[in-house]
């Protein structure tokens, strides 16, 4: 190729650098076009093979009168459906995914450094932060699901040779998140706090009174506690990683948080797909049966 005007006009040093960069470059035809072609062929062949071997599912005709048990969303939304079992539907179905997407889109606006750009995990502590983030995310999610599904009680019964019903009554509040609401003697006043009469005095503005009675224990279990955990645990991880000198730069923190997010996403999706059977009960995959999608 003829040297460009820019190249000829530049100083010898710049020219040398440009030439060195050139040496590092390949022509798109044939080098890249060839790779793309092979990838497309391999992919077409394997998809055709897959489609010959496995048929797409088709169940009975849609019937609004017959609700399958369990009814599940498509697999990529089962993470949200899993969240739905543990918290207020508005939180699980709308607020969490919205906040997650906004946070995802905002990553480059938090971490604007050039550290580790253009190479796999190129910063010094990248792999360590990835592993810690992913393990904390996965194990944390699993433990929370086990707790909310009361499976720690089953485990305790297995280990001690007791029956599940032998769990001490005094510790009933530790059975699950919901148990905090049911098995604690909350003062009567807290079960129905008339916000409409005491706090939101819309009647003073000449508007109709709002009928808003808040059940505090339910609010704690369905909204406050899940929010605190979903915000607090990642922050706690960031704090500890920072104190331990494991996450020192913004890129370090981003890697830990993103890996944690991916791990949570995967664990929730897998649990929702393969470990939830009738009545969305937590079961082993062989008792759930083959997922259809």
């Amino acid at each position, binding site marked *: 190729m003829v040297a460009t005007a820019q190249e000829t006009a530049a100083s010898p040093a710049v020219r040398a650098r440009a030439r060195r960069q050139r040496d590092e470059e390949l022509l798109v035809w044939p080098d890249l*076009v060839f790779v793309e072609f092979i990838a497309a062929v391999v992919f077409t062949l394997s998809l055709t093979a897959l489609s010959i071997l496995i048929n797409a599912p088709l169940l009975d005709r849609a019937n609004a009168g017959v609700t399958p048990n369990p009814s599940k969303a498509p697999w990529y939304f089962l993470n949200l459906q899993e969240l739905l079992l543990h918290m207020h539907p508005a939180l699980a179905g709308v607020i969490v995914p919205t906040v997650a997407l906004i946070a995802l889109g905002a990553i480059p606006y938090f971490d604007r450094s050039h550290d580790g750009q253009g190479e796999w995990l190129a910063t010094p502590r990248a792999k360590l932060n990835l592993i810690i983030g992913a393990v904390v995310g996965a194990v944390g999610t699993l433990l929370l699901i086990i707790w909310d599904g009361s499976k720690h009680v089953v485990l305790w019964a297995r280990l001690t040779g007791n029956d599940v019903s032998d769990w001490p009554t005094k510790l009933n509040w530790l059975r699950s998140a919901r148990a905090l609401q049911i098995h604690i003697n909350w003062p009567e006043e807290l079960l129905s706090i008339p916000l409409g009469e005491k706090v939101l005095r819309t009647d003073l503005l000449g508007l109709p009174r709002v009928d808003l009675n808040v059940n505090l224990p339910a609010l704690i279990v369905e909204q406050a506690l899940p929010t605190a955990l979903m915000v607090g645990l990642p922050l706690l991880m960031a704090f500890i990683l920072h104190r331990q000198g494991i996450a020192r730069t913004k890129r370090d923190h981003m890697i830990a948080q993103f890996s944690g997010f991916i791990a949570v996403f995967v664990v929730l999706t897998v649990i929702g797909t393969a470990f939830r059977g009738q009545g969305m009960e937590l079961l082993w995959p062989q008792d759930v049966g083959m997922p259809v999608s």
Partner: protein
Amino acid sequence: MATTERPEGRSLGDRVYDMLFHNYVWQSIFRSGYPNTPRNQMLVVATNVFLHLHPTRIHRTHVKITHTYCLGGLSFFLFLGLTITGVLLMFYYVPSVERAYEDILALETDVRFGILMRNMHRWMAHGMVIMVLLHMMRVFYTGAYKPPREFNWVVGVVLLVLTLLLSFTGYLLPWDQLAFWAITVGTNMVGSAPILGEPNRFALIGGFVVGPNALIRFYTLHVIGLPLLAAIFMAVHFWRIRRDGGLARPL
């Protein structure tokens, strides 16, 4: 290749090659022969309408499979494959509550290669969701969202949402129990949002329950609305890759 230069001793292969590629019709389509000099290879990439999405040269690390694993390219490839199989499926499918399920059944039993088309469309759709998620992870772990590529990452997030919506709207179309209840569960989640949830759900499915209105809305979004949006965002995505100086490199 001028035949006059070698008047004698031409093999059969040469003659067949000439007949195939040096005739008037072929050369009216492809103006030059196989580009076997660097200059012609760059020209072909720069002037061919399909190839010119690429730059003419590319850094050697970006050609290594392990840099991108071709994940973005495969997402795009799946999008194209889904368009082709989707158009074929549209020949047979009518989005009405009376016909949708029967049409899918007929497609599987009466239409030659119908079941293959349906299977390919479905597995490609699942594949695209997986590829896009993996592509996002590769972009993240190679630090390719960093300046000046911040906005292309945001475009990517929009593409991720569009991909999920494309898959979700297609999920209802077979009108079987799987489709109906998955969409019922999914749209109920939308309905649970504070204040705006119910109106949004109503607008999405055109009623209080999933029925004929939901089917036609999902169909329209699935075959034209969302693919059009996705194509526009993909055009921006690819354009930005070029404007941002190709794939990210260490600085």
